[in-house]
Protein backbone atom coordinates (compact mmCIF):
# COMPACT_ATOMS: atom_id res chain seq x y z
CA UNK A 1 0.00 0.00 0.00
CA UNK A 2 2.77 2.42 0.89
CA UNK A 3 4.50 1.47 -2.35
CA UNK A 4 1.42 2.53 -4.33
CA UNK A 5 1.41 5.86 -2.49
CA UNK A 6 5.10 6.37 -3.29
CA UNK A 7 4.55 5.54 -6.95
CA UNK A 8 1.63 7.96 -7.22
CA UNK A 9 3.71 10.74 -5.64
CA UNK A 10 6.53 10.14 -8.15
CA UNK A 11 4.14 10.09 -11.12
CA UNK A 12 2.57 13.34 -9.93
CA UNK A 13 6.04 14.93 -9.72
CA UNK A 14 6.77 13.98 -13.33
CA UNK A 15 3.38 15.20 -14.60
CA UNK A 16 3.54 18.55 -12.80
CA UNK A 17 7.12 19.10 -13.97
CA UNK A 18 6.05 18.45 -17.54
CA UNK A 19 3.13 20.87 -17.21
CA UNK A 20 5.46 23.51 -15.73
CA UNK A 21 7.55 23.51 -18.89
CA UNK A 22 4.60 22.97 -21.27
CA UNK A 23 2.18 25.80 -20.32
CA UNK A 24 2.44 28.97 -22.38
CA UNK A 25 0.62 31.11 -19.81
CA UNK A 26 3.12 32.19 -17.18
CA UNK A 27 0.63 32.22 -14.28
CA UNK A 28 -0.36 28.59 -14.96
CA UNK A 29 3.31 27.70 -15.11
CA UNK A 30 3.98 29.27 -11.72
CA UNK A 31 1.03 27.43 -10.13
CA UNK A 32 2.34 24.16 -11.59
CA UNK A 33 5.73 24.95 -10.06
CA UNK A 34 4.05 25.35 -6.66
CA UNK A 35 2.34 21.97 -7.07
CA UNK A 36 5.67 20.39 -8.06
CA UNK A 37 7.27 21.87 -4.95
CA UNK A 38 4.50 20.57 -2.71
CA UNK A 39 4.77 17.02 -4.02
CA UNK A 40 8.57 17.08 -3.77
CA UNK A 41 8.02 18.04 -0.12
CA UNK A 42 5.80 14.95 0.29
CA UNK A 43 8.52 12.82 -1.30
CA UNK A 44 11.06 14.23 1.20
CA UNK A 45 8.73 13.29 4.01
CA UNK A 46 8.47 9.76 2.63
CA UNK A 47 12.27 9.57 2.57
CA UNK A 48 12.44 10.35 6.34
CA UNK A 49 13.72 13.90 5.96
CA UNK A 50 11.18 16.14 7.75
CA UNK A 51 13.69 18.99 8.14
CA UNK A 52 14.03 19.39 4.40
CA UNK A 53 10.29 18.82 3.94
CA UNK A 54 9.41 21.78 6.17
CA UNK A 55 11.95 23.98 4.38
CA UNK A 56 10.69 22.99 0.93
CA UNK A 57 7.03 23.46 1.86
CA UNK A 58 7.66 26.87 3.37
CA UNK A 59 10.03 28.22 0.77
CA UNK A 60 9.15 26.42 -2.45
CA UNK A 61 5.39 26.45 -2.15
CA UNK A 62 4.96 29.67 -0.18
CA UNK A 63 7.57 32.36 -0.63
CA UNK A 64 8.79 31.41 -4.09
CA UNK A 65 5.26 31.58 -5.52
CA UNK A 66 4.73 34.99 -3.92
CA UNK A 67 7.95 36.33 -5.46
CA UNK A 68 7.07 34.93 -8.91
CA UNK A 69 3.59 36.49 -8.79
CA UNK A 70 5.02 39.88 -7.78
CA UNK A 71 7.42 39.67 -10.74
CA UNK A 72 4.60 38.68 -13.12
CA UNK A 73 2.56 41.62 -11.89
CA UNK A 74 5.40 43.96 -12.81
CA UNK A 75 6.10 42.38 -16.18
CA UNK A 76 2.73 41.44 -17.65
CA UNK A 77 1.30 37.98 -17.65
CA UNK A 78 1.13 36.66 -21.20
CA UNK A 79 4.22 35.16 -22.73
CA UNK A 80 5.45 37.24 -25.63
CA UNK A 81 5.37 35.23 -28.82
CA UNK A 82 6.20 36.21 -32.36
CA UNK A 83 4.65 34.87 -35.53
CA UNK A 84 5.88 31.56 -36.78
CA UNK A 85 7.14 30.27 -33.44
CA UNK A 86 6.03 26.95 -32.06
Amino acid at each position, binding site marked *: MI*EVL*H*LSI*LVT*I*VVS*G*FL*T*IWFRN*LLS*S*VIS*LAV*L*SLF*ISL*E*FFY*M*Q*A*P*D*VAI*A*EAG*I*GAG*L*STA*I*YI*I*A*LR*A*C*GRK*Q*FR*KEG*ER
Partner: protein
Amino acid sequence: MTGNFPYLVVGILFVMGFIGIIFEKNLVKIAIAVSVVEAATNLFIITLGYRSGGSIPVWTMAGGGSSRMVLPTPQALTLTAIVIGLATTALMLSFAMTIYRHYGSLDVRDVRRLQG
Protein backbone atom coordinates in the same frame (compact mmCIF):
# COMPACT_ATOMS: atom_id res chain seq x y z
CA MET B 1 8.31 -2.74 -6.52
CA THR B 2 9.56 0.76 -7.11
CA GLY B 3 13.17 -0.26 -7.72
CA ASN B 4 15.30 2.52 -9.13
CA PHE B 5 12.29 4.57 -10.19
CA PRO B 6 13.21 7.64 -8.05
CA TYR B 7 16.50 8.03 -9.91
CA LEU B 8 14.59 7.82 -13.20
CA VAL B 9 12.23 10.57 -11.99
CA VAL B 10 15.22 12.76 -11.11
CA GLY B 11 16.68 12.21 -14.61
CA ILE B 12 13.41 13.04 -16.36
CA LEU B 13 12.92 16.20 -14.27
CA PHE B 14 16.51 17.33 -14.93
CA VAL B 15 16.24 16.84 -18.69
CA MET B 16 12.90 18.69 -18.81
CA GLY B 17 14.40 21.65 -16.96
CA PHE B 18 17.40 21.59 -19.31
CA ILE B 19 15.11 21.69 -22.35
CA GLY B 20 13.28 24.62 -20.78
CA ILE B 21 16.50 26.57 -20.18
CA ILE B 22 17.67 26.05 -23.76
CA PHE B 23 14.48 26.46 -25.82
CA GLU B 24 12.49 29.10 -23.97
CA LYS B 25 12.70 32.74 -25.03
CA ASN B 26 11.08 34.42 -22.03
CA LEU B 27 13.25 35.45 -19.11
CA VAL B 28 10.70 34.53 -16.41
CA LYS B 29 10.18 31.14 -18.05
CA ILE B 30 13.94 30.56 -17.98
CA ALA B 31 13.91 31.35 -14.26
CA ILE B 32 11.11 28.78 -13.79
CA ALA B 33 13.16 26.17 -15.65
CA VAL B 34 16.17 26.90 -13.42
CA SER B 35 13.89 26.31 -10.42
CA VAL B 36 12.88 22.92 -11.86
CA VAL B 37 16.56 21.96 -12.21
CA GLU B 38 17.16 23.01 -8.59
CA ALA B 39 14.27 20.85 -7.43
CA ALA B 40 15.69 17.88 -9.35
CA THR B 41 19.10 18.36 -7.75
CA ASN B 42 17.67 18.55 -4.23
CA LEU B 43 15.63 15.40 -4.83
CA PHE B 44 18.73 13.60 -6.12
CA ILE B 45 20.83 14.43 -3.06
CA ILE B 46 18.11 13.31 -0.66
CA THR B 47 17.55 10.12 -2.66
CA LEU B 48 21.26 9.26 -2.38
CA GLY B 49 21.03 9.30 1.42
CA TYR B 50 17.89 7.21 1.85
CA ARG B 51 18.27 3.92 3.68
CA SER B 52 15.36 1.50 3.43
CA GLY B 53 13.79 0.94 6.83
CA GLY B 54 15.76 3.77 8.41
CA SER B 55 14.24 6.20 10.84
CA ILE B 56 14.32 9.99 11.09
CA PRO B 57 17.77 11.27 12.22
CA VAL B 58 16.25 12.96 15.27
CA TRP B 59 16.63 11.12 18.57
CA THR B 60 13.45 12.64 19.97
CA MET B 61 11.33 10.97 17.31
CA ALA B 62 13.42 7.86 16.57
CA GLY B 63 11.44 5.45 18.70
CA GLY B 64 12.16 1.85 19.54
CA GLY B 65 15.89 2.27 20.05
CA SER B 66 16.71 1.71 16.41
CA SER B 67 20.20 2.94 15.58
CA ARG B 68 19.63 2.43 11.86
CA MET B 69 19.02 5.96 10.66
CA VAL B 70 18.86 7.76 7.34
CA LEU B 71 22.15 9.47 6.47
CA PRO B 72 22.05 12.99 7.96
CA THR B 73 24.76 14.80 5.98
CA PRO B 74 22.90 15.06 2.63
CA GLN B 75 19.91 16.51 4.47
CA ALA B 76 22.08 19.20 6.05
CA LEU B 77 23.60 20.14 2.70
CA THR B 78 20.20 20.23 0.97
CA LEU B 79 18.85 22.50 3.70
CA THR B 80 21.51 25.05 2.81
CA ALA B 81 20.89 24.65 -0.92
CA ILE B 82 17.17 25.42 -0.70
CA VAL B 83 17.65 28.84 0.96
CA ILE B 84 20.39 29.78 -1.53
CA GLY B 85 18.03 28.70 -4.35
CA LEU B 86 15.40 31.15 -3.13
CA ALA B 87 18.00 33.96 -2.96
CA THR B 88 19.20 33.32 -6.53
CA THR B 89 15.61 33.11 -7.79
CA ALA B 90 14.81 36.49 -6.22
CA LEU B 91 17.90 38.01 -7.83
CA MET B 92 17.02 36.58 -11.28
CA LEU B 93 13.47 37.92 -11.08
CA SER B 94 14.73 41.34 -9.96
CA PHE B 95 16.98 41.50 -13.01
CA ALA B 96 14.03 40.46 -15.19
CA MET B 97 11.90 43.27 -13.75
CA THR B 98 14.68 45.82 -14.34
CA ILE B 99 15.16 44.59 -17.93
CA TYR B 100 11.42 44.88 -18.57
CA ARG B 101 11.44 48.43 -17.26
CA HIS B 102 14.28 49.44 -19.58
CA TYR B 103 13.46 47.51 -22.75
CA GLY B 104 9.69 47.03 -22.57
CA SER B 105 9.98 43.35 -23.38
CA LEU B 106 11.01 40.08 -21.80
CA ASP B 107 12.02 38.32 -24.99
CA VAL B 108 15.70 37.50 -25.06
CA ARG B 109 15.91 38.36 -28.77
CA ASP B 110 14.85 41.95 -28.07
CA VAL B 111 17.36 42.50 -25.30
CA ARG B 112 20.37 42.13 -27.60
CA ARG B 113 20.51 45.84 -28.35
CA LEU B 114 23.64 46.34 -26.31
CA GLN B 115 25.69 44.09 -28.55
CA GLY B 116 25.31 46.53 -31.42
